[in-house]
């Protein structure tokens, strides 16, 4: 039986008539997704039936834990001081209907790990819940690439906490599926902890992308860079709630958020809610957004160089997504994605 959830509830509500204070989603997960794992030496793995980090706040909300209650939970650990050079590759095949997976990455002090999560296939609903717990000076580079089949509803939820001097770098690409609900909440708890979120998407047809990204600064001198870029064509829809929450005590913190949306057709719809919450004096918070079509002067210049208008738009659309793709910390995946796009 499908579960009714209100996902992606933002940290601060706004006008009710905009309908952005959370999204109602009905979904069910009955099976565990097939997992292909390339496990580098030095990474520990354990499978559990219970959620390893149930209390960690995630972006989509606590209901995803209940949705995925029946699937296996994979816990990957890196011991203190271990710096793993090769990426941990996890390829998920959602070919069975209504499948899900849950992962937890636990990095002890001074450790490093790169993780590539690749989502493929898909029937009806696919869902993934990911948590990351970083110790002092730990560094996790996590890339999530969503290239699911047409028609799939995808729920992706992430929660992370970062201790002193730790860094969590996220790359997220949304290239497939029909409706994607993408949540992400990072707690910057340790002094000098940092996160970088790079997200890219290219949507067409009637695709829908509903995002809720949060960086919660409680530690001193914490830093967040949130960069989202994408392209909307046909009748696609995108909603980004991006919140930088500078809480009392996070003196010296800096939070930056930038969004760039290219609109390709008159039937697209874009909603952007870039929020800064601030309860500390000695901080800096910035956000900027650019939404619309290409600059006419740029088009004029390129047309004068012999390019057709459609080709210019295609080139600039690719450039936005490619910029995010190139930040994925795995040359093999970057090459594969750039090659796919070029075909």
């Amino acid at each position, binding site marked *: 039986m499908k579960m009714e959830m209100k996902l992606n509830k933002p940290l601060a509500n706004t006008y009710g008539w*905009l309908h952005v204070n959370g999204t109602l989603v009905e979904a069910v997960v009955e099976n565990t997704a097939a997992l292909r794992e390339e496990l580098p030496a030095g990474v520990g793995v354990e499978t559990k039936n219970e959620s390893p980090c149930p209390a960690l706040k995630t972006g989509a909300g606590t209901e995803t834990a209940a949705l995925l209650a029946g699937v296996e939970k994979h816990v990957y650990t890196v011991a203190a001081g271990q710096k793993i050079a090769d990426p941990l590759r996890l390829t998920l095949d959602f070919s069975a209907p209504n499948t899900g997976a849950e992962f937890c990455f636990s990095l002890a002090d001074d450790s490093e790990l790169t993780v590539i999560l690749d989502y493929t296939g898909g029937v009806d609903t696919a869902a993934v819940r990911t948590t990351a717990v970083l110790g002092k000076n730990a560094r996790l580079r996590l890339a999530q690439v969503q290239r699911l089949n047409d028609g799939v509803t995808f729920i992706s939820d992430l929660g992370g906490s970062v201790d002193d001097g730790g860094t969590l770098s996220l790359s997220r690409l949304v290239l497939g599926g029909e409706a994607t609900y993408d949540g992400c909440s990072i707690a910057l708890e340790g002094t000098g902890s940092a996160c970088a979120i790079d997200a890219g998407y290219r949507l067409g047809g009637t695709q829908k992308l509903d995002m809720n990204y949060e960086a919660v600064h409680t530690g001193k001198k914490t830093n967040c860079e949130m960069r989202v870029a994408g392209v909307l064509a046909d009748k696609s829809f995108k909603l980004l709630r991006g919140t930088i929450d500078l809480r009392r005590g996070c003196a010296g913190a800096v939070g930056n958020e930038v969004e760039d949306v290219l609109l390709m057709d008159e039937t697209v719809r874009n909603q952007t809610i870039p929020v800064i919450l601030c309860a500390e004096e000695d*901080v800096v*918070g*910035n956000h900027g957004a650019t939404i619309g079509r290409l600059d006419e002067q740029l088009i004029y210049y390129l047309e004068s160089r012999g390019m057709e208008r459609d080709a210019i738009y295609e080139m600039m659309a690719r450039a936005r997504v490619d910029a995010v793709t190139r930040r994925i910390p795995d040359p093999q995946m970057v090459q594969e994605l750039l090659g796919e796009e070029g075909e």
Partner: protein
Amino acid sequence: MAEEKTFVEDVDRSRYDFRNDDGDSYKVDEGLTPAIVEQISREKNDPDWMRDFRLKSLDIFNRTDMPDWGPSIEGLNMENIVTYVRPHTKMSATWDEVPAEIKDTFERLGIPQAERESLAGVGAQYDSELVYHNVKAEVAAQGVIYTDLESALHGPKADMIREHFMHLVPPTDHKFAALHGAVWSGGSFVYVPPGVSVEIPLQSYFRLNSPGAGQFEHTLIIVDENAYLHFIEGCSAPKYNVANLHAGCVELYVGKNATLRYSTIENWSKNMYNLNTKRARVEEGGKVEWVSGSFGSHVSYLYPMSVLNGRGAKSEFTGVTFAGAGQNLDTGCKVVHNAPDTTSYVNTRSISKSGGISTFRSAVVVGPKAENSKSAVSCQSLMIDDISRSDTIPAMDIRTDKADIGHEARIGRISDDAVFYLMSRGISEEEARALIVSGFAENVSKELPLEYALEMNNLIRMEMKGAIG
């Protein structure tokens, strides 16, 4: 070395915080019932349609939920609010006819002096009723109508009022719009005929004197084709220990190629719940300019909205909000682009100190018909100390590809380098900080007539007055 900190005092509101005994006034009972609404309607000598409108609005109010976003309004209990208080006087056209105590109130607020020196007309409301209304003869001779709304309801423009009253802000808009529809009283009606430019501003001033009362004035302005008007709205109240409520409504109709500038210096007392609704509809080639300074109130929900309905219509919003101790001011604006080639420009500053909370909240909606529209939003927030709060919650909803939308926001504190530079020039730290904050709010002060800009800067200076400790 211990870090130096600036202690910032609360504003000296003695100019505004004086009160008169309201024992002589006529009041309805506390609370909100059909009987009270009918009583107000009888007192106002409403036409039948207006009485029916009030009762329908009350029904909508009772069926509408409180907002589930924004500052808490739990301290506001409608059962304790007196929705209609009529001072013991009739409206006059000369200050000499206004009772001495009320006249003295407006003298202390500087209204008659401003009228003599820099205004084309003045309306002065005291609690629920206008007590004074006048417009200069040369302005009236141009066909400009500036009168209280109740008189207009029975005058030659009665049909025009009926055609426009609460059409921009229907009672279904939100709970306090419905409340306004049920119990509105007072306010002004302005009509500027086609081609007429009113060179000097008109002003309405709203004073709420009675404790535990609500003020629900309705301002309806119609600026016809190719006309120009600058309208100034001021408001204040003495502070009481009980909650007061302001749920006014402003509806502005800006005709083809017309321009309306609407300036507000809001300085309600810090027991006031300011749940005001302002909206403008702008036709082809027209322009609305909002200039807004929010300094008072305990809690504010204030988001003037521009609906750009005609090709090439424009909206500019310039605002400053200063939230001090005990204040939670949720302010901003909304713009709806409904036609091609429309533009909107939003430029705001907010300042938080002494535990005050300021929130900038906005919405820019660009509809499918608004091809070639442009919007730019810039909001900056200044945190004076680490016990205050400043939030920025903008929203953009874009439904066409042929639009250019830009948004930028910044939250920070007063730059130590800037303070150091000014101090190196012989200015005290306190003065330096006050100067920086005044400069920060210059976006609004430079848009106001000189007298009002000076008053606003004085307010900021008083807010920033303190000692280094």
